[in-house]
């Protein structure tokens, strides 16, 4: 059998590995289509052959929910994530405008689109709560997704960037210079739900919540929310 | 067979208003550059939709704007040799030649094909593409392409302009045969009176988009009034003649109104009626029958009119039976010889060209 998962792009590393493990343990194939949550949600609205949807935020899942496209009671909060400030220089940064502007050194602060992409939206919430958004706003370079923000920092184009903790895991030359307290922004949640009646869905969802998957998610910097 | 055309058309500053009727045979469009010859041909071909008018061949109407008839170009069965060659650059010469037959889903007769290729001397070019052909080679291929389309109407717009005399001399008899044997009507544009005189049945002289003169070839070419349109050097008359003998020394004998004519080997059968053209400039007049001259041809006639030109020349019109000979001599000679209307006179003719043969004419 075969299960098609529509998942937000940022899950690619973890889900690719989990798909392989599921295949070995169950003998079934898990195909994962990665794209932005908005695109995936719209495709599901248009009858895409997705069995399971993992969104990078709750908004798009809510939209599908309201339209009755989710299978009854299948929605779970699968993962959480943390928002971090990264830089190439490992020296820890203080989340105050002087220090940050100092480190930017006239260069941009890399963030995902602040009013469109979840990581950007959370970032703005955090900076606002810290009362320094107005200072930083003019310096922000907005990228189409959070990985591009990471790339800007990795290439040295931006001295600092706001990304998820899960993005930083594999990079040795990128350092977390500060973590945002989770209280500064809405909770970062990756909800999951079934969108088809594929009989394999249950087993796949169970596997996603299972120990093996949990370990992989953790390894990749996610927090696993686990609860029913 | 008859050919009947009436066209009115405006384009930019030029307006065309042309109408003529012609019997079967070759209708020559004659006139100076920019007088509308190509425009007429294009209208007949259907490449130009005139504002008003019609064109008919016998009972086939090519178009009639008033009646709303418009035969599509590709159904007109044309062979059009354009003033610019318009060969298909992506095809070989051979493919160009075969285009018409293919388009009409018709097999081309190999004999006909070989004959045309041979006539035009393009056998060596068959595998080549048109782009690098010489000017004359292009023109010859264009002629071949039109002839091999098995046309029911030939439109020839200065087809021989870029060709040497020798090649022209080979192609003209072929066109004559098409005219006579295949009876294909031909609309022929040319600046060469020699060509026109040789081929044309009817001559239509255009001037500034209007018909200045139209009529049977012999009439137009022997009309002193038409001389200005045709150019003085080329004025001349055409006489009916009958081929009576081929002599052993290569000369052929013809009888005309004014006596016998001996011409270098005429390629035709005894008994045939033909026309010979005598340029006014080539005629010498004599009061008495001349003696001891190398010229073999002396015709006898009576002066009917003398017309003084702008220069020192006089155009003398000489009646012989019901036909006319034109002679262009100097006024000084006319005075010296005391020529008067009504005088008997001998016309000594050196060069004569066969203008046209029409069997049973």
């Amino acid at each position, binding site marked *: 059998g075969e299960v098609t998962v529509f998942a937000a792009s940022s899950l690619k*590393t973890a889900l690719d590995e989990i798909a392989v493990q599921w295949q070995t343990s169950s003998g079934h194939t898990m*195909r994962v*289509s990665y*794209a932005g949550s908005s695109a995936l949600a719209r495709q599901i609205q248009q009858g895409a052959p997705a069995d399971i949807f993992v969104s990078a935020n709750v908004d798009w899942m809510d939209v599908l929910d309201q339209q009755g496209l989710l299978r009854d009671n299948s929605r779970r909060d699968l993962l959480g994530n943390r928002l971090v400030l990264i830089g190439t220089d490992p020296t820890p940064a203080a989340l105050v405008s002087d220090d940050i502007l100092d480190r930017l050194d006239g260069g941009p602060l890399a963030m995902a689109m602040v009013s469109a992409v979840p990581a950007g939206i959370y970032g703005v919430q955090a900076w606002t709560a810290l009362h320094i958004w107005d200072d930083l706003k003019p310096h922000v370079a907005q990228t189409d997704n959070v990985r591009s923000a990471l790339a800007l920092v990795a290439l040295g184009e931006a001295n600092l960037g706001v990304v998820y903790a899960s993005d930083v895991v594999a990079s040795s030359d990128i350092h977390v210079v500060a973590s945002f307290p989770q209280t500064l922004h809405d909770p970062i949640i990756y909800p999951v739900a079934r969108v088809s009646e594929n009989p394999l869905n249950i087993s796949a969802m169970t596997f996603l919540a299972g120990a093996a998957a949990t370990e992989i998610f953790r390894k990749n910097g996610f927090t696993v929310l686990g609860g029913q | 067979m008859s050919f009947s055309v009436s066209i009115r058309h405006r384009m930019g500053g030029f307006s065309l208003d042309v109408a003529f009727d012609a019997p079967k045979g070759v209708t020559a469009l004659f006139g100076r550059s920019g007088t509308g010859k190509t425009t007429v041909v294009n209208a007949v071909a259907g490449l130009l939709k005139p504002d008003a008018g019609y064109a008919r061949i016998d009972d086939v109407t090519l178009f009639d704007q008033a009646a709303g008839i418009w035969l599509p170009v590709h159904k007109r069965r044309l062979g059009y040799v354009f003033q610019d060659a318009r060969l*298909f*650059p992506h095809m070989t010469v051979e493919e160009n030649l075969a*285009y018409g037959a293919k388009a009409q889903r018709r097999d081309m007769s190999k004999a006909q094909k070989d004959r045309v290729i041979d006539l035009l001397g393009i056998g060596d070019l068959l595998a080549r*593409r048109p782009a690098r052909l010489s000017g004359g080679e292009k023109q010859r291929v264009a002629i071949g392409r039109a002839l091999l*389309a098995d046309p029911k109407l030939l439109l020839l717009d200065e087809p021989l302009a870029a060709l040497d005399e020798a090649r022209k001399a080979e192609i003209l008899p072929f066109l004559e045969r098409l005219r006579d044997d295949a009876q294909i009507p031909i609309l022929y544009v040319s600046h060469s009176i020699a060509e026109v005189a040789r081929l044309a049945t009817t001559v239509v002289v255009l001037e500034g988009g209007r018909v200045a003169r139209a009529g049977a070839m012999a009439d137009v070419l022997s009309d002193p009034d038409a001389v200005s349109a045709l150019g003085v050097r080329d004025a001349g008359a055409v006489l009916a003649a009958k081929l009576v003998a081929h002599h052993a020394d290569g000369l052929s004998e013809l009888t005309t109104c004014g006596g016998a004519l001996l011409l270098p080997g005429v390629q035709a059968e005894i008994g045939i009626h033909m026309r010979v053209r005598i340029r006014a400039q080539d005629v010498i007049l004599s009061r008495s029958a001349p003696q001891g001259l190398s010229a073999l041809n002396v015709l006898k006639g009576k002066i009917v009119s003398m017309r003084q030109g702008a220069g020192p020349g006089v155009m003398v019109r000489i009646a012989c039976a019901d036909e006319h000979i034109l002679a262009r001599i100097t006024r000084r000679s006319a005075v010296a010889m005391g020529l008067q209307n009504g005088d008997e006179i001998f016309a000594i003719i050196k060069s004569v060209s066969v203008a046209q043969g029409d069997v049973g004419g």
Partner: protein
Amino acid sequence: MSWLGPDGWTAVLLSLKVSFWAVFLSLPFSIAIAWILARKDFVGKQVVNGLVHLPLILPPVVTGYILLMILGRNAPVGAFLEQYLGIVVAFRWTGAAVAAAVMAFPLTVRAIRLAIEAVNPGLEDAASTLGASRVRVFFTITLPLIVPGIIAGVVMGFAKAMGEFGATITFVSAIPGRTQTLPSAIYGQLQVPGGEDLALRLVLVSVVVAMAALVVSEVVSRRVARRIAGQ
């Protein structure tokens, strides 16, 4: 195999298939539209012209979105096609081909249109005097003469189809082995920390394939052009 990752080769083959069919099937339409735009005058010509250029003007994501809204399985046209003709393109490789075709269309049409406008109408006239119907004139004169333009258009279209990402992923998603084209795979790799290496290899394959197509087309086109120029 693993040099290009698990789905790499599949993506390469899929992209080739998608690009080929995208260009191949849309070519008759490209030629027809190009001919109409080059040779005909009619009310609404500017609208047609505009529609043709639309995929160029719009961000590809928007084009993909529009395609999804029209051809999705729940969308009006898509549902109709599925119900009455049994044709589904959404989320199939055929949909990727549709997206690629739409994105490549303006490029192909423009190239061919320019070529048609350069054909001397006198040659077409000459062909019709020889008895060729309009259709025959088109196929024996116009078409052969615009072959270099068609090749240029096809190559541009093929290159574009090979590189098309935004519209494709938006319209048909990136389901490995089914709709994940080479650009989607590259994009996916760029999302993975440390995925740049594999992405670079995929880019290389993409470049090599497209360059090969380019060189072949140049050679063919040159030969054709030289033919037409004589020799």
